[in-house]
């Protein structure tokens, strides 16, 4: 076969000599590599105690956002669900009653909002689709669970803590992301 480039090298299929068959040099070469790693910096970290920083574009667990007064931003418009390629998001909407104005930002809100984390592929399309800046992907990942039913995340799991009642937890959940101001 004619070689098109000179990058390919033909395999040397000559029978090995006696010295080569002893593999002494090859074993020594391998050991040099192995022992040299003893003196290099360790790439592993002690995971639960130490944590690596996430990339600023990391897409983790979803959070349902609240506005600065602590009202839920989500209006159950269904754009996240229609954008979701894995069909992981379902919701049921309700009308805000009189006296619930401090709970929900708009006239309509998501009474039920569920993300099936078993289906979710963390693509972030829901975040992109959201016109109300209500859902975004945080800097944590879904914790492991022994049972599948633990991965159906409802509103209590997804909602961000109240910014006025629990400011520290809210800050922590918000992470280092710059949140867009959407009217």
């Amino acid at each position, binding site marked *: 076969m004619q070689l098109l480039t000179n990058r390919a090298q033909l395999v040397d299929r000559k029978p090995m000599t006696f010295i080569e068959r002893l593999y002494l040099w090859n074993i020594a070469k391998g050991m040099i590599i192995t022992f040299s790693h003893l003196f290099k910096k360790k790439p592993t970290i002690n995971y639960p105690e130490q944590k690596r920083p996430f990339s600023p574009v990391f897409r983790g667990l979803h959070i349902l956002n609240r506005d600065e007064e602590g009202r839920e931003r989500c209006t159950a*418009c*269904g754009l996240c669900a*229609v954008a979701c390629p894995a069909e992981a998001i379902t919701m*049921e909407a309700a009308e805000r009653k009189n006296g619930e104005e401090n709970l929900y930002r708009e006239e309509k809100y998501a009474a039920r909002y569920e993300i*099936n984390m078993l289906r979710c592929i963390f693509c972030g399309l829901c975040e992109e689709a959201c016109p109300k800046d209500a859902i975004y992907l945080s800097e944590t990942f879904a914790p492991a669970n022994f049972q*599948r039913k633990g991965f159906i995340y409802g509103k209590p799991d997804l909602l961000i803590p109240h910014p006025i009642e629990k400011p520290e937890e809210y800050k922590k959940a918000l992470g280092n992301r710059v949140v867009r101001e959407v009217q």
Partner: protein
Amino acid sequence: MSEERKLIKVTIDNITIDVEPGTSILNAARSIGGDVAPPAMCYYSKLKGSGGKCRTCLVEVAAGSTADPRPMPKLVASCRTNVMDGMIVKNITSEKVMDARNGVVEFLLINHPLDCPICDQAGECHLQDLSYEHGKESTRYEFKRRTFEKHDLGPYIQLHMTRCILCYRCVFTADQLTNKRVHGVLDRGDHSEIATFIEKNLDNDFIGNVIDVCPVGALTDKTFRFKNRVWFTKPVDAHCNCSKCCGEVQLWMRGDEVFRVTARKDEWGEIKDSTKGGTGWICNECRFEKKSLKDWVVEGPSVINRHSVISQGHYVDLVTPKETISAVMGGRSPKLLMNIHDESDVNKQNIELSKLNRPAHSDDFA
């Protein structure tokens, strides 16, 4: 005039067709179909006297007729201008028209709220489509948008006056379909609003059709309000034996639940003619009260334009592959590790939202 009427020639966007004299440019363009047909927000072919208000159907007349081939000096509203023999009309081929239409859309959106995420009309809204094609990304309007005091139009129809573009279609509907119109446009100019002068319910038998003719989300179905987004429901054609109306409707279903009943629409978003002849207006009882599959004979899924958001998740010509797991496992079916209905709070079997004749509230989910 002789009995036999001569057809006249009209050229719209370089496509020549023969139409009857007395046809409007809009209807001539609609008979060609496709992109050539100008959009219309206020004109409704099934309603006498409609049109001429929204100005979205403006077209350029490059030559008035063979007898007088001078162009018309200004853009004309195609729904109100009749064709002449030898008329040459430019719609999408005219830059002037496109520019004017962009301006009209911008004016229509000046006072229109940006609440599509809440609005039940989203997904089947003509203004949404229009602004998607012609609108700007943001508004240049700096002042407060007009708002109105809320008017209650009774248990069936929800009025959102802020969304209204004053097309008058609902007024014509009430005039031509019902024996007594109780709503109309009050005040004038910037203050004009659709309302009943004294708080009054709209409860005429055919008044529900104002929901279907409304091009925006100003008049929506209260029994469907906030229940579901149109693109999550599956439209099917159905009929029933109704003594008052033609009984031919479209059901918007989710599973076995009938969430909404509307009249069937054609490709221009107008109510189709029924098979019995005449426009397929439907009565209030069919629209608001028959929310059970037992009331209807389902004919089959409605044909939805592939480009509409409503067609999302409608997998046509789907071939389900043969299930081989049980054959491999010797007749046993695989163990279900989780039934989503046991875990999920959404779509609970014991709560039938479609049966509520009002929007769901927080206590419905308690």
